[in-house]
């Protein structure tokens, strides 16, 4: 499928969700379903889906200890080993995983390889790391900030985070830095995918869909905050209703709010099933989370079974005369 077609289909898919949201906003029953039933359904799908996903991965054993080593191993005592990039113990492995999860360590290594005038050149390519990290951190900040609607009293950390995030005090209500960086990250990731021919070539529908869906969520959120304000009291009352298992349908939350809600629900429900499950999968990656100690300590394989080997006896039986002729010792004369 041509990449342009794929992008269009992804746009249409997100638009279809928007249409569904419009329908929900227009119909009283659908609105009730969206605000009273869907949240629990989505949460259940997300939680159970993720648990199912992880258990499916975990059920497959790790038969061999296969860390990708990116530094000196622990060997002779006078050789300085790299305890994080080549973990010799659990602390090192935890450090390595923390580096991957919080700082995208491996992506930071990214360099661009090019052939220029018959020479091989390695250019810095930290853009993917920078914007990738920025996008993920922003998304986390945005998610955490939303906790103000789900907690009563509001968690002090969330208040602090929001204050920090909005410290530029541009406009009223204040513009959040994380909203801007989220959009910048999204724009970079989308343009990179759509413009670079190689990345475009490997991109699938799901890749564009994920980006467009998150962009739509962000856009509707920003519209509500800065251009078409919604009644925050009503929003919080609704959210707290969910949390206290006493949901009350909002009187009039507005179309944008329904749209935002609908898009978010689709995103959350889809998380465990598509490529976005990388958020859980990374923790199970055997090339990253294992300690490199397979010569120091025996790693066990759950399904290790005997195989057919060629025994020394069979070998000597075939070559005994040749061995004797060469003056090599044999077991049986």
């Amino acid at each position, binding site marked *: *499928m041509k990449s342009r077609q794929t992008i269009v*289909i992804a746009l249409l898919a997100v638009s279809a969700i928007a249409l569904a949201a419009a329908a929900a906003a227009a119909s009283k029953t659908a609105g009730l379903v969206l605000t009273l039933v869907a949240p629990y359904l989505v949460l259940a799908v997300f939680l159970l889906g993720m648990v199912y996903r992880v258990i499916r*991965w*975990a059920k*497959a054993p*790790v*038969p*061999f*200890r*296969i860390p*990708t080593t*990116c*530094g*000196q*191993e622990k*060997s*002779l005592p006078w050789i300085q080993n790299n305890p994080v990039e*080549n973990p010799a113990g659990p602390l090192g492995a935890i450090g390595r995983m923390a580096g*991957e999860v919080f700082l*995208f360590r*491996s992506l930071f290594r*990214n360099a661009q390889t090019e*052939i220029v005038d*018959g*020479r*091989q050149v*390695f250019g810095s390519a930290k853009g*993917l790391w920078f914007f990738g990290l920025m996008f993920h951190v922003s998304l986390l900040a945005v998610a955490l900030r939303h906790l103000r609607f789900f907690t009563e009293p509001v968690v002090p950390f969330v208040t602090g985070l929001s204050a920090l995030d909005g410290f530029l005090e541009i406009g009223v209500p204040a513009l959040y830095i994380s909203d801007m960086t989220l959009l910048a990250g999204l724009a970079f990731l989308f343009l990179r995918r759509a413009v670079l021919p*190689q*990345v475009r*070539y*490997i991109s699938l*529908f*799901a890749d564009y869909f994920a980006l467009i869906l998150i962009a739509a969520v962000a856009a509707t959120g920003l519209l509500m905050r800065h251009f078409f304000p919604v009644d925050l009291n009503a929003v919080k009352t609704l959210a707290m209703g969910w949390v206290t298992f006493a949901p009350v349908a909002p009187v009039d939350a507005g179309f944008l709010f329904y749209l935002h809600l609908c898009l978010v629900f689709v995103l959350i429900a889809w998380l465990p099933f*598509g*490529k976005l499950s*990388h958020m859980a999968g*990374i923790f*199970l*990656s*055997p*090339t990253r989370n294992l300690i*490199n100690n*397979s*010569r*120091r300590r*025996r*790693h066990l394989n759950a*399904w290790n079974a005997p*195989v*057919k*080997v*060629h025994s020394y006896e069979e*070998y000597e039986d075939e070559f005994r005369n*040749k*061995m004797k002729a*060469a*003056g*090599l*010792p044999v077991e049986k004369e």
Partner: protein
Amino acid sequence: MSLAKIPKPDDLIKIDYAPPKTGWMKTPVDFRPGTWSYPAAPKNLTALEMPNPRAWQPGDADWKLPENWKRIILDGMKERLEKYRSFRLFMDICVRCGACADKCHFYIGSGDPKNMPVLRAELIRSVYRRYFTASGRCFGTLAGARDLTEDVLKEWFYYFYQCTECRRCSVFCPYGIDQAEITMIGRELLNLVGCNINWVLEPAANCFRTGNHLGILPGGMKDMLEFLADDIEDRTGVRVEVPINKKGADILFVTPSADYFADPGTYTCMGYLMLFHEIGLNYTFSTYASEGGNFGLFTSHEMMKRLNAKIYAEARRLGVKWILGGECGHMWRVIHQYMDTMNGPADFLEEPVSPITGTRFENARSTKMVHVVEFTADLIRNGRLKLDPSRNDHIRLTFHDSCNPARAMGLFEEPRYIIANTCNHFYEMAEDTIREKTFCCGAGAGLGNDENMEMRMRGGMPRAMAVRDVVQKHGVNRLGCICAIDRATLPPLMDYWVPGVAVTGVHELLGNALVMKGEKERTTDLRDDEISAPSP
């Protein structure tokens, strides 16, 4: 296939990185001569009791697959999805960010997008989605899924035998997705229906029967080692012993058969023999376990285990205390990451202790197998060797980290320590091309055959370019390594891209520099080249 048929370096380096106009699912494989390896001869499959032995060629329209080949592959996938977390996880979590793309030496050298690790994995992921995920079953192409057809299988064959399982992509992947792992599983599946290459299966079959890849019989091995001892006597005036199948030895020494069979590995082997003689090591070679390499790694986990089993079995039979392993790349991947798990526990052996220095090799406590480079570095550190590095003054050296010791062990400092003590002129290549970021020789994982020469030159190009830079900058004339496949594949690569650079094992350098008791004045190195004259 001769070198004449491949493009000249100046033409080959004009690589077109623009992807084809057609999408990758609609671009069929072109089996262009020079870019693939001959299929396995039926006799080798028969010898290993592997399925579907037959005469066929990849260019044939009919690959003579078993009638139920699709069922076999899909059942095989299901089984492996349940047996390997790596496989299942790597099928699921890729986000196609493309960070791995220009990290693969085959992609850099060919510009073929299916050589991007991400797309090579998608070749199998697309089938996984179609048959093992709900979205793939429902939405097909839109979900990145496609049917398993003969064309897909041909594509697998072409591209899984255009991956050297070097793990470089895995270093850069934010989730550590390791194409080597996917290629290994892909090749296992291909083997289930008899699609494999002779350069892997013939060594495996030989190794199974005769103990080594080259099919060298016991007497032949003895002759070759004695021949090396003659050469040592010629160069140094010292006669070294070559113990073989010796019961009561302290240590079993296992090295790739290429080390005693073919130049320039033989010079490395001479280095071992001189070293062991000089320190009075009570060791033995074995004819039954006369191969350190393990082409099972390039076939299937099962084959790896079948071939590897000999090492422990022989150590037990000979009653040695522990095992010492020679310079080899993929051999050490197997020993370090698989051997103990597969064929251990080696509780009949002792924890390795150097009989010379008394150093306890804690890091090999369970597997009981020590890398010769670790062993030698410890000897030098403890001042047990008399070395004259000036005997290597005609060598201007750079060092190629071999993929597996680099990315499956982390063996970086030991070889450099030996080099620092044996060699006065040492120059590192560019940072992006050494240590964990090292580039493959382009012909590992069983691809080092002549019919695949164009692809080898393409895949080896990034390594060769890095060598060329230090040649131009520092006048380097020697490329060091600790891998037998490197010693076999780098010389033609150097001849093609950087003529004038010879390839050397680290223990060859040691052999040159080693001052032996009772030696005559050394005028030549182990290659019989004048020590004072620059190496050709």
